């Protein structure tokens, strides 16, 4: 079972439908304790950083336990940003801080939010990128982007005024700034790669 963390911020059908479409068994989870039986966990991205952390708070301990047990976790969009320590979007809020670094606003001279299909550059060929090629395009919608302290976890980037972290991967944790569930066949491929990692 792939758990989709529902923190009541809106539409989770897209991610549910995408996982269902590729033959995974998604389940929308509203109770933190239900995460214990998940083979994989998706932290979707909706809303602002601060709002997201407020709603995710009750799930934090169970998510951390799953991470330490080696359960594959996929963060999407804001679900990637909350893995870091803090964000300029909500300076008062604390992120999970599983990864060192922060989230900052896109540069002022580009279109904000970045909205649309951007191409990625691949730094390192990891499982989550199986079948994905340099230059493939994914659907991004965001105004802030992640700046990790440790660049080795950045496996793909895109460019929107500046280089932007598109995909990170470290052990059983991976995350995308773009929305794989809205990125057509290539996005579904990313989700398939994630689901495959939950079956090992």
């Amino acid at each position, binding site marked *: 079972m792939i758990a989709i963390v529902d923190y009541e911020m*809106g*539409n989770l*059908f*897209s991610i549910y*439908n*995408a996982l*269902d*479409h590729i033959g995974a068994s998604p389940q929308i989870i509203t109770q933190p304790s239900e995460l214990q039986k998940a083979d994989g966990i998706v932290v979707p991205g909706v*809303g602002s950083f601060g709002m997201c952390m407020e709603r995710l708070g009750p799930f934090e301990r169970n998510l951390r336990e799953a991470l330490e047990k080696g359960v594959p976790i996929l963060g999407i969009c804001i679900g990637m940003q909350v893995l870091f320590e803090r964000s300029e979007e909500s300076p008062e809020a604390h992120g999970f801080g599983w990864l060192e670094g922060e989230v900052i606003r896109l540069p002022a001279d580009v*279109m*904000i*939010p*970045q*909205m*649309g*299909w*951007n*191409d990625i550059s691949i730094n390192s060929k990891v499982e989550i990128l199986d079948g994905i090629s340099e230059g493939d*395009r994914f*659907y991004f*919608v965001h105004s802030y982007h992640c700046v990790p302290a440790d660049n080795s976890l950045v496996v793909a980037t895109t*460019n*929107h005024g500046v280089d932007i972290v598109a995909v990170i991967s470290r052990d059983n944790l991976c995350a995308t700034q773009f929305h794989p*569930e*809205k*990125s*057509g*066949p290539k*996005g*579904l491929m990313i989700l398939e790669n994630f689901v495959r990692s939950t079956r090992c």
Partner: protein
Amino acid sequence: MLAKRIIPCLDCDLGVPNGRVVKGIEFKQIRYAGNPSELASRYYLEGADEIVFLDITASHERRDTMVNVIEKTSRSVFVPLTVGGGISSMKDARSAFKAGADKITLNTAAIRRPELITEIASRYGNQAVVVAIDAKRRLGREEGRIVIDSPEGECWYECSIYGGREFTGIDAIAWASEAERLGAGEILLTSMNRDGTYDGFDIPLTGAVSSNLNIPVIASGGCANAQHMLEVFQETKASAALAASIFHFEEWTIEGCKRYLAERGIPVRL
């Protein structure tokens, strides 16, 4: 670099079970084009970057049909879905988002009550609110209007509401900037003079609006072929081109349009 988007638009008559896609000419005569969710799936497989559904029946009793169409479509279509036509309140917006829409478009309701843009944007994000503008060219110079040059001489553009049935006196170019200020994430700009004519996009209008704004502008109305798309991307700052009939009646495929554009140096998702 962001790709220019190609967006098929499905004008839906929801007065029949499952709805049907229709296409008008200059906002009037109607031709039928098929079932909304089936067409959406076909366009997804052909490489549509996004799909727009517009409810042209726009009566509240039929809202359930739209919810069904979105729900059904979102099971097999994995690109952003935009829904509009008759959305006039937070409640309407919520039901569209709940059914699986990623963005909603506001037209008449935003003109009548501009704060609605801000209200929906602050709940669902700016990117989720598209303000649709139906603009009609008015020749001549008029006090207080943004006047631009067109092949027929100086003109300004007037906003229409209720699907082209009523004119507002509001300057469309100025309204687009106001919509951005109020929190719109995108403008869907339809030229009423070009809609359904196959004469190509309204370049002066699209150019004026897109160079005024920082948010993306979707050019709409008049597209007959990939050359028209090339023209709008080369001559204006439009981020996306929307077309209906050429896809519905299989005159061009989305993939065919994209290949044509890619060969001429326009960044697209292939």
